[in-house]
């Protein structure tokens, strides 16, 4: 890293201006990041105490390790000039597609659905890493075609680039990640300045596609989504219809959160979590654990940290020194926003179950590490912006 041009510039800047060194991290973003990591460790630790007989810290230890690795990577990435990633766009995109295909192939070989590789201690999910790689690659493609942004062609190609991996992960089946990819493409185009007309057309196209997938195709005998996925998507509209089945999770999650009342039931009193009524309490439904154990107060703190995270991310988007940085920041902030709202919305019963993890909070190496990597890149965008403005400031200063 010491050989990176970032360093040189910084040295230049400090060399020129004998003032306190420029802050290279957005401390508030870092604060939100670390706060959420701490919340995650506390919640996952509480929720999984009885899950693995004989080792109460099984999940906590692993989450701690993931967070540690993720933080190291975050700091490393933040010191790197993200702009160099632009040249790697083909490679990044190829890695995304290839790793997803590899998982599909392995899944076919083991005759089951698969989303991950086993890498030593980590269940590596390519679809998670794909979220970040797609942001980087799509942003690069859009930057390349920024002069032809008004062409329908640009919008269509960008969407297609996102839809390919999206379709592949939906087949896995991982509906949530597939939706995140599409949202990322939308966000990148949105920040780049694609015309409203294109968005209107895209929106209409998706509405038709969803109608086809959910209603028309099943009637014609073609199952685009697995039946359980359809049930999950539609179940939240009528949560009491089938309390023992698909909507069971939604109901139990709502009960868990509601039961937390204002200040929570405490770790030992959180029976929904402890007695396993709440499914997936350390992964998809971790927010419900927060709600039950620490009540409205705890949930509000976590939400506040996310608000801080998103506010700082949006701010970094505005600060970015170049378009590529802004697009990356836009993609990442959309990715975070979407996942937070879909996941929290699901646990409070206003969104369908799509299997989207809560960034940083949900247990899971792939998700935690990739999110921290993304935040590292945001920090890099921030750092580069500060560098650039400092440099410019020096340059403009007579």
């Amino acid at each position, binding site marked *: 890293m010491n050989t990176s041009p970032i360093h040189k510039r910084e040295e230049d800047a400090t060399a020129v201006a004998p003032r306190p060194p420029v802050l290279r991290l957005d401390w508030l973003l870092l604060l939100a990041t670390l706060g959420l990591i701490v919340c995650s460790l506390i919640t996952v630790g509480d929720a999984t105490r009885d899950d693995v007989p004989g080792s109460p810290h099984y999940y906590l230890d692993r989450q701690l390790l993931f967070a540690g690795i993720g933080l190291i990577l975050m700091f490393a990435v933040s010191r790197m000039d993200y702009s160099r990633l632009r040249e790697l766009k083909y490679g990044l995109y190829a890695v995304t597609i290839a790793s997803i295909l590899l998982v599909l192939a392995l899944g076919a070989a083991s005759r089951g659905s698969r989303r991950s590789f086993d890498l030593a201690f980590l269940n590596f999910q390519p679809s998670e890493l794909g979220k970040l790689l797609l942001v980087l690659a799509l942003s690069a493609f859009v930057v390349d075609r920024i002069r032809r942004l008004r062409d329908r062609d640009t919008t269509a190609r960008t969407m297609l680039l996102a839809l390919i991996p999206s379709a592949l992960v939906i087949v896995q089946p991982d509906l949530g990640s597939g939706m995140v990819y599409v949202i990322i493409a939308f966000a990148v185009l949105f920040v780049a300045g694609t015309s409203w007309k294109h968005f209107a057309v895209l929106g209409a196209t998706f509405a038709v596609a969803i109608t086809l997938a959910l209603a028309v195709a099943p009637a014609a005998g073609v199952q685009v989504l697995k039946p359980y996925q359809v049930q999950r998507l539609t179940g939240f509209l009528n949560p009491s219809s089938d309390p023992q089945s698909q909507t069971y999770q939604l109901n139990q999650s709502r009960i868990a*959160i509601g039961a937390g*009342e204002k200040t929570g039931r405490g770790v030992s009193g959180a029976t929904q979590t402890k007695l396993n009524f709440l499914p997936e309490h350390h992964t998809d439904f971790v927010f419900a654990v927060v709600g039950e154990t620490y009540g*409205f107060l705890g949930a509000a703190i976590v939400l506040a940290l996310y608000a801080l995270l998103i506010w700082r991310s949006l701010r970094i988007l505005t600060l970015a020194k170049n378009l590529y940085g802004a697009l990356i920041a836009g993609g990442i902030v959309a990715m975070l926003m979407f996942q937070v709202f879909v996941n929290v919305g699901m646990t409070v019963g206003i969104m369908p179950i799509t299997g989207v993890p809560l960034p940083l909070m949900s247990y899971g190496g792939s998700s935690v590490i990739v999110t921290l990597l993304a935040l590292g890149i945001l920090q890099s965008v921030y750092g580069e912006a500060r560098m650039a403005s400092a440099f410019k400031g020096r340059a403009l200063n007579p």
Partner: protein
Amino acid sequence: MLQLQLPDERRPPITPQLALRVAILGGIALTMFAIIFFRLWFLEVLSGDKYRAQANNNRIRDVAVPAPRGDIVDRNGTVLVDNRVSIAVQIDPRKLPPAGPRRRVLYQRLGAVIGETPHQIDTEVRRQHALVPYAPATIKSDASRDLYSYLFERQNEFPGVTVTRVYLRQYPHGNVGAHMFGTIGSISPGELKMLKFKGVHQGTIVGQDGIEYSYDRYLRGVDGASRVQIDSLGRATGELALRQPLQGKNLKLSIDFGLQREGEQAISGLGNGRGAFVAMDPRNGEVLALGSTPSFDPNVFAKPLTQARYKALTSPSNGSPLLDRAIRGEYPTGSTFKLITSVAGLQSGAFTPDTFIDDPGSIQIGGITFQNSGGTPHGALALREALQVSSDVFFYTLGARINNSGTQALQKWAHRLGIGRPTGIDLPGEFSGLLPTPAWRDRLFRKHLTDRPWSVGDNVNLAVGQGDLEATPIQMATAYSAVANGGRVLRPHIGLEVDDAAGRVLQTIQPGASRNIHLDPSNRQAILDGLHLAASAPGGTSADVWAGFPHQIDGKTGTAERPNQADQSWYVCYAPDPQRPLVIAVTIEEGGFGAEAAAPAARLMMSQWFGVQKKFVAGTSTTR
């Protein structure tokens, strides 16, 4: 320029378009945070108590802990009915998957585990659900420990299937007393509304028949409740509170186990294998033995009964084993009825103990010839000898006389002695029998249900226990007891006292009041003399049966003619022992003459009662 030197304060130039779009993103974020924030507020603050209640409802289950029923013991403390713990596999129809492939798969898997076909399970669940709609259906009792663990650990794989510990009734002596004890089962919706079962909760096991029914409120315990915390798979993770079940109280019966067993042995295998007996203390109506044959093993009711087995237990072709002939067998009584005719004749003044009537072997009354059995002439005789040799002509004459007096004294006295109405024994479902009266037959005739009105011949037949008369063994025992004790028509009873577990008396069961009839002592003595002669003097109908028996016996044989089957053997006797008086009534379907089957069986029972050598002595008397 100063601003440019302070990088923190400076914004790189962004296009208005980007600013707008970032603002839109921020707006979306703000809106979403607001929605979630208010949703959280709604869930946790506004409806928090509701969800907390639901969460508690999720994890807390009140499980009824069934209380064992009280034991039933005989008068000497011999245990007749107690309990054993068993593991039952039950299906709660409300928690089953809906009918269709999922339920079929469940039945298949369950069937493979418990060794039944899915069809059997389905049929059983439907049958029990129809009987008691809300209670779980027991599809297997007496499951093994292994099966219990297997199903208990896999409750999520078998929705609606539960394994529970239940108390099953246990009958250590097999068939002995089977008819008396009756059965138990989940309380039915109809029973829930009955005053008798006031305060009983749904799903409680209550007595359904026999003693179990009559004394249910003593035998039934108080179910306990266990409040357990369960996890999402329904597994108990801890007990939060427990209310201990209270076992029911023990019931002591007036039954003497030895006599009961002897009676059942004595009558089994006689006649066509169908019969009944009652042994009663004539002083107080305590029933010492009461049985019916063919019998059955009450243990079969502890578990769900198969259709075939239930059919076998109720089918007339093999003697309807469930039928308690002692209280539900309605038969003509033959000559044992002569005691009642005697009482009626003497008390109504139709004759005196010393009135002589000539018995030429047959008699013409109302244009019909009535004969002694075999046409044997007995010559002129008074009441004592008439009872001794069981002269039919004597009692035919008496029946005709009473009829002609127009007082209906025979019906009146028979009614007073308890014929044609329930004795009020503390067993459910007692039959009344039929005491034919002129009014009864005339009414039938007016409705064209019979070919003729009442005639003197009806009374003549009734006088010897024939014709339309139907009486049960318990009625005969009660009538004889009334004569034996000098005129008290007792209410027979089996329940003696309610005891605690240590055998201390909690409550003595008061039988209903007896009915007093006025019986002139000299008349009574004459009748008892006649019965004694019949059982002891040469020529007495059962004298040879009692040959060598060391205790005094007053007894009357009966041979009832029944259409389309061989004669029914009857015997009712009284042992006037001051310490241990006993009245025994025995009837054997198709047993032939009274002295052939019923009387020897009564001797065996008396031998048991007095502790003398038991011997089956068949008499040779061929009178009715």
